[in-house]
């Protein structure tokens, strides 16, 4: 059985039918990538999984447990962490306080301290700036902070929403190699990206989303060779 199972999910924004029956499964240890253009429903999918949105129809299960009996804030202790679109760091909290908020649901002081050390080891830049308020960090540093903060909850499933958005190419490389590292240490990842090129390089499998529907799903290697994906998302004619 897959770790995350999204089955025939329909989500509405008011009257707008944003997700029209989406089914995704993510097995433990995988990196699965969700690619698609603007307004395809990528972010909506992640927000539905993380509990910020309620689906009208369909189910989302983690390890077989239905997630929508819980509120968004309760899902963190179920093992889901999300790095929201636009990073969502708390601009007026310090770097250290942001990381502390990532571990909000935990009470094991020693474990939190260990994870804090790990986060600083993963991103030494954050260590240098831990007393600085997060709003003064650069875009790349904020992305690192958002990822480190999500990892502070010790998630089994990490949802990443456009981690490469607005970053310089060097930083995009760094972020994606970190994603691969985090995955190797045992965290399952569901990645939403416009940068299909990078996303399919790091992912094991991928789904292509168009106007609220899954139009294609395959291994990342096959998707990279798929003519439609090449034309629409990889810029290859």
């Amino acid at each position, binding site marked *: 059985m897959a770790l995350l199972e999204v089955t025939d999910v329909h989500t509405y924004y008011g009257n707008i039918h944003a997700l029209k029956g989406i089914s995704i499964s993510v097995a433990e240890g995988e990196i699965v990538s969700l690619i698609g253009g603007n307004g395809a429903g990528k972010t909506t999918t992640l927000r539905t999984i*993380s*509990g*910020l949105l309620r689906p009208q129809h369909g189910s989302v299960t983690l390890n077989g447990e239905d997630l929508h009996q819980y*509120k*968004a*804030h*309760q*899902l*963190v*202790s179920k093992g889901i*962490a*999300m790095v*929201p679109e636009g990073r*969502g760091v*708390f*601009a*007026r*909290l310090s770097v250290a*306080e942001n990381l*502390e*908020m*990532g571990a*909000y*649901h935990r009470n094991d002081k020693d474990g939190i301290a260990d994870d804090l050390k790990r986060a600083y080891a993963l991103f030494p830049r954050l260590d240098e700036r831990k007393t600085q308020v997060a709003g003064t960090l650069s875009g790349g540093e904020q992305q690192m902070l958002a990822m480190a*903060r999500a990892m502070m*909850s010790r998630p089994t499933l990490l949802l990443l929403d456009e981690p490469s958005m607005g970053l310089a190419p060097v930083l995009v490389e760094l972020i994606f190699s970190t994603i691969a590292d985090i995955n190797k240490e045992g965290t399952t990842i569901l990645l939403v990206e416009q940068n299909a090129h990078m996303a399919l390089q790091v992912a094991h499998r991928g789904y292509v989303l168009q106007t609220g529907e899954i139009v294609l799903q395959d291994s990342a290697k096959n998707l990279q060779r798929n003519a439609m994906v090449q034309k629409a998302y990889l810029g290859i004619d």
Partner: protein
Amino acid sequence: MSQRFKDIDYIDLLLWLFRAVIIIIVIWGTVAKIFLGRGNAYTADDWIDFFVSGLSQGSLYALIALGYTLVYGVLFMINFAHGEFFMSGTMTATVFVALPLSASGFLDEHPIIGMLAIMLTAMLISIGVAVLTERVAYRPLRRAPRLVPLITAIGASFFWQYFFRGLYGSSLVPFPELAVLQGKYNLFGIEILKTRAVVVVASVVMLVGLYFFVMRTKTGKAIRAVAEDKDVAALMGIDVDRTIAITFATGAAMAGAAGVLYGLVFRQVHFFMGFVPGIKAFTAAVLGGIGSIPGAALGGLFLGVIEAVGPPLFLEGLGIPGGHQLKDVIAFTMLVLVLIFRPQGIIGERLAEKKA
């Protein structure tokens, strides 16, 4: 050069004129008072007295202003029922705790325990009223347009006023006088009314305590996180509804304590006592920069001092009789001035686009 003049429209000009007139009036009045000796002749002790009474009144404003600022910080809503949180705790504590304790003589035998009991009761009742109001009246409107909770808050304010009028009647209830707080302290040769000194010290302790709570504790950090982004806070595992309720409770606790201190100074409480201090504290919060905790403290103290020192200083200097009755005019003129010329307040930051 002509281009520069073209960019100035007549509203700007009018506002500049308005500002200049106010400044000239204040300076003129002050100069007339100090150098020409208009109005009553005050001794140095009198001025110190004005200042200290302003400080104690201002620290009450500061305590109440915190509630406005905290709630505004997380919900971007002006909770106009906050004055009633202030009133409800004190009214209840006076009727059910202070008067019986005073009648039995316990309050004079053990003034500290007695006062703590009164304060604790007031704070708990205020918290109860605040949490109930938030749960019943505000939470269902969390996603409504911003005008809706504002109007609801005004309705809630009336509801609580007349609810407590129904409970305790519309007459003034005397707040007991403590024997130990009669008279004055002598501080480096300066005579200070004991009640005023107690008010200032208690307020400062609570302000510092609250600042520590919000900046250092996990719950305080969660409040700040919720203030910035509720969705992301929820993704961190923060229970947003609970955190907002805690924010209301914190502000109400401060208001409840301020109510008891108000009782100590003015020695009477009644169902309408929350209205004017509530509006004044709102003014103080805006003055300091709404959303900012040090701003609320500073705005409160500043407003209190200006209200107390302003009338004898520049109003008397202008030859205006009965200046003290015009202290509300000073307070609200300042509110208007701040809203026109520095809407972010003394130390507030400009609102980010998201919040504006």
